[in-house]
């Protein structure tokens, strides 16, 4: 058996260790009820139409209150479903007050990791590959461990698929500057 294969075996071992290290916790409670299932799932609103910077910069960006306002100027109530109208109230109050919703952070990489959405989105990585089936989640939770081994597993694979021109994928300085 080739050294390469043995190496792959070792890698698999460490990768499995990685998955063990990271059990996905349930999503944190957010200040107001916001359902990705409704927005991204039922309404089929594209991710980048709210997370506008995902294709342009390192951070995907939290939608501005102006953007919420954009739709909820009209979507204010649901006569048939009073409970939905009730759910909308807190948001409408905040929008009226002109303040901002203080969302609780879900995904986080350490400060010594330089992660940029831009490169991943432009490379054609689907949001779900890292964030999970967000459009099915009422409350967003972290599904991927976001550990180095987890990142590398994909980077190594992509590099093995087409090594030429992808040297940077497994360079330390790509993520640690």
């Amino acid at each position: 058996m080739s050294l390469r294969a043995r190496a792959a075996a070792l890698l698999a071992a460490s990768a499995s260790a990685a998955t063990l290290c990271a059990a996905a916790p349930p999503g944190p409670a957010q200040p107001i009820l916001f359902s990705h299932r409704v927005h991204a799932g039922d309404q089929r609103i594209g991710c980048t139409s709210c997370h506008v910077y995902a294709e342009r910069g390192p951070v995907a960006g939290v939608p501005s209150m102006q953007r919420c306002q954009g739709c909820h100027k009209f979507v204010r109530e649901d006569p048939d479903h009073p409970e939905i109208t009730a759910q909308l109230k807190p948001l409408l109050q905040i929008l009226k007050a002109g303040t901002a919703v203080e969302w609780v952070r879900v995904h986080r990489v350490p400060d010594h990791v330089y992660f940029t959405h831009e490169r991943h989105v432009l490379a054609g990585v689907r949001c779900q590959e890292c964030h999970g089936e967000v459009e099915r989640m009422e409350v967003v939770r972290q599904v991927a461990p976001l550990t180095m081994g987890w990142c590398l597993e994909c980077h190594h694979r992509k590099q093995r698929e087409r090594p030429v021109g992808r040297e940077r994928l497994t360079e330390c300085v790509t993520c640690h500057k």
Partner: protein
Amino acid sequence: MTTSTGEAFRSIEETVRATHGRPGPAYWIGLAIAGSVAAFGAWSYSLIVRTGLHWTGLERPGMWGNLITDFVFWVGIAHSGTLISAILFLFRARFRTAVYRIAEMMTVFAVLTAGLYPILHLGRPWFAHWLFPYPNQRGLWPNFRSPLIWDVFAVSTYLIVSTVFLLVGVAPDAAALRARATGWRRRLYGVLAFGWKGTDEQWRHYTRAYLFFAAFATPLVVSVHSVVSWDFAVSILPGWHSTLFPPYFVAGAILSGVAMVITILIPVRRAFRLETLIELRHIDMLARLVILTGLIVTYSYATEILLALQGPAGDPERSTFLYRMTGPYAFVFWTMVACNCVGPALLLWNRVRRSTPLLMGICIAVNVGMWLERFNIVVSSLSHDRLPFDWRIYVPTWVEWAMTVGAFGWFFTLFMIGMKILPPVSIAELKEEAAHASHEGAAHAG
């Protein structure tokens, strides 16, 4: 006659058991001193942990100083133990029997001391485990090309193997002591005896296994200090980059180790009433080892310097050695020469060798000299490297001195405790010798 053999056995056991008797005030005072010195060292290290290595006198270009010197020194000390016990065992050197147990104890405790220092000198010691290979979520392993990783493997292997070697040797003795021990000692010896009954089959496996251990340990001893020497030799720093280092370091290690054994044996045999078992002729044989290794070390010094001085005027290598001999560290260099070259040579005179105080003095001097040798190698080369603009003199701070002294405190604490638990000589082998002796007596009588 038969009884005489039995008595001989009994007297041996008695002498050994006596060393484990209730400790006197002297012992407690000694232990207290050693312990507090170690504690002070630990406290001064806590300063570094709290706010960083700025407590040291280190600065570019000299990134290593006292702490690495301590590491190399204690690894060196650790050498004699396994040397005396394994190599001399393979060479069937009789005088080994009386002294090797203490030497082995010294080895284990010295490695325990040495192993600390590379970790203590790290910028981020809390990540020291990254130097060990274990499957991790990062998918990143150590760099096996680094001499420091070789150190990790060499030193930890050495620690494990010499500990095993020590305990295996202790097993039959533990069984013997257990017979008349009580309380915790009985339980402890029960464990250390590994269910030893002394049946012939056990002995057959045991003797065989002991041979293998010796066979493993011997190349290991040589490899460990060679590896330590490679920490320096594989670098490209003038004064470090030298093919001579491995043999030179091994010889130096044995020199310092044996000197340390003597330094310890002389007071110990007196304090623990072991004169009957550890005789002066044993120590004399060790002193001869000091002469031998001292000569090798002297030869190495000479070769190194003479080769370096062959270089052209602007040669950094040459410059470094001139700096060692004439620069601000000259006193270190010349003290080292006095202690490691002249000292052992004096032992060529029987009168010097036989006089306990002189021998003791020279051995202590050799230990000082060997510490200075490592300091000289580590520091003077660094502070005088290739770009003169960066030259800088390193002076250890009190924190570093405290940690250096603390190492001795730590070592002697362990050693004094060990002396009260483990048999300081190999009972079984002494019995064998005793039987042998009485036989010869019988043969003459008959």
